[in-house]
């Protein structure tokens, strides 16, 4: 049985907010790219929406990360080594936080390109966005790996968090685009985004199961079964229901504000419970 004696890092709202928005930013970018390559010409307005949002979200992400630091003005120390006599770039491939800072910075560049594209008529070569998707996918999921690469209870007892955060980011982004597309009256694209959300909900459910199984094996599942966290996990599952139901009934929602918001709340709640349950 895993035993932990590590103190909690007190990562709270800024971090949960960052995890949430990073998932949406990356997911929005990847789904927009998929729609641009494989979708119909009539999907263009939704693609534009998908390319519009990553930049503002990434900017807020960077703001959250910076504000969470004890010394925010030293954010750049993540990138540049300021140790006397060891000047150079900071990059540790074995530290997800180190890689993540670089990935977020590079993804920010692709998000900027996408943002510019969304505001104009000219299309960038699709190859650029395919490369951007690699960084977007990393930004969506590395936050879960970052938690696992620690000595904290729960986080370090499972391999499932990276996949769970990524699947959840996909689901949230599909709901967000479906909602915004619905408001922009793009019914066909919304229908297909609803189906995508159904698939992503299944994927997320599988990773939630893997998460609990791995904690059970490690012997630390008890933390997640404390009344407050258990209730929140049940709520997370409830928010997956529309997607799972759509798959079962072959309906293709979410195409309503209520359902989309429910999915987004679930995406946020899942990150909240994972982050807080291990620390308190």
């Amino acid at each position, binding site marked *: 049985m895993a035993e*932990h*004696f*590590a*103190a*909690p*890092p*007190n*990562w709270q709202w800024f971090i949960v907010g960052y995890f949430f928005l990073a998932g949406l930013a990356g997911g929005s970018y*990847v*789904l927009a790219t*998929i729609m641009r390559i494989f979708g*119909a010409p009539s*999907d263009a307005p939704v693609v534009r929406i998908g390319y519009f949002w990553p930049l503002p979200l990434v900017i807020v992400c960077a703001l959250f990360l910076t504000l969470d*630091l*004890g*010394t925010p003005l*030293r*954010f750049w*120390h*993540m990138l540049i080594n*300021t*140790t006397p006599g060891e000047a150079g770039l*900071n990059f540790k491939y*074995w*530290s997800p*936080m180190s890689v993540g*800072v670089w990935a977020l910075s590079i993804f920010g560049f692709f998000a900027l390109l996408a943002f510019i594209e969304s505001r104009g008529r000219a299309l960038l070569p699709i190859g650029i966005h395919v490369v951007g*998707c690699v960084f977007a*996918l990393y930004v*969506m*999921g590395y936050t*879960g*790996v*970052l938690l*696992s*690469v620690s*000595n*904290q209870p729960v*986080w*370090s007892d499972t*391999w499932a*968090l*990276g996949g769970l*955060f*990524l*699947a959840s980011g*996909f689901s949230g982004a599909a709901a967000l685009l479906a909602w915004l597309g619905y408001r922009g009256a793009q019914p066909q694209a919304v229908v*297909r*985004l*609803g*189906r*995508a959300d*159904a*698939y992503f909900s299944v*994927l997320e459910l599988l*990773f939630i199961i893997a998460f609990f199984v791995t904690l059970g094996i490690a012997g630390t599942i008890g933390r997640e079964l404390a009344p407050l966290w258990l209730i929140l996990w049940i709520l997370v599952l409830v928010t997956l229901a529309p997607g799972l139901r759509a798959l079962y009934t*072959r*309906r*293709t929602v979410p*195409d309503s504000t209520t359902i989309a918001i429910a999915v987004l709340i679930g995406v946020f709640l899942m990150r909240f419970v994972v982050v807080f349950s291990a620390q308190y």
Partner: protein
Amino acid sequence: MAERVGFFTDTTVCIGCKACEVACKEWNGLAGDKAEFRDSFDNTGQMDAENWRHVKFIDLVPEAPAVQPNGTAWLLMSDVCKHCTHASCMEVCPTNAIVRTEYDTVFIQPDVCNGCRNCISACPYSAIGFSQTTGVAHKCSFCYDRLQNNLTPACAKACPTQSIQFGNLDDLYQKADARLANLHAQGINQAQLYGRDESVYGGLHAFYLLAAEPEVYGLPNAANAKLPRHNNTGGYLGMLAAAVIGVFAGIAALRNGTHGSGGEQ
């Protein structure tokens, strides 16, 4: 490189006087603790940004009166950063603020740290704390400034029973081995060294002689002493699987011509 130094803490002779805590605070200019009652003789609580030493009082007094052999009703231990050979905090620090000194100890550079707290998340011993005052992480520096001036670290200097011994690491190993053999000869077979060999984080520069299993003292045993990076492979594989499945699921759902059988329009 200067010689490798270390602490050998013999918990069996610790009397819980907390002189080490006081000396540490005095030398390093750490703030005092707000007085509060706890369910123990321990009024420090834990190591943090202002407490780089913490004397643990481990209460094993049975509820029902009984004869206790070998004085094991209370276990005392002066806890501190272990200055691990394979240090979890160094491994994850994204700013490289945590470095290894010429004495082979682990040191946080306060002017480089930006307070991300990833080291706190990684340290298996709760030895690092975050200061709201300075905005960076702090822990035992092994009295780096004293080492540079050929002085014994304040805690070891103040320890009245020599429970905390400072010196060349190899010399301390010999002392520890001799002490362990002595205790075993006395029939105290539960005595064991912790961090003396490489089974725990490659060996600890602050290693211990314990009178019970490590878990009793709040220390991870060899099976649980894992570096954070061991989760990289599994975590990234799970993420990769989700990425591949997610992208293909997205293509399957979003490609032109897959409008589905209906919807709640």
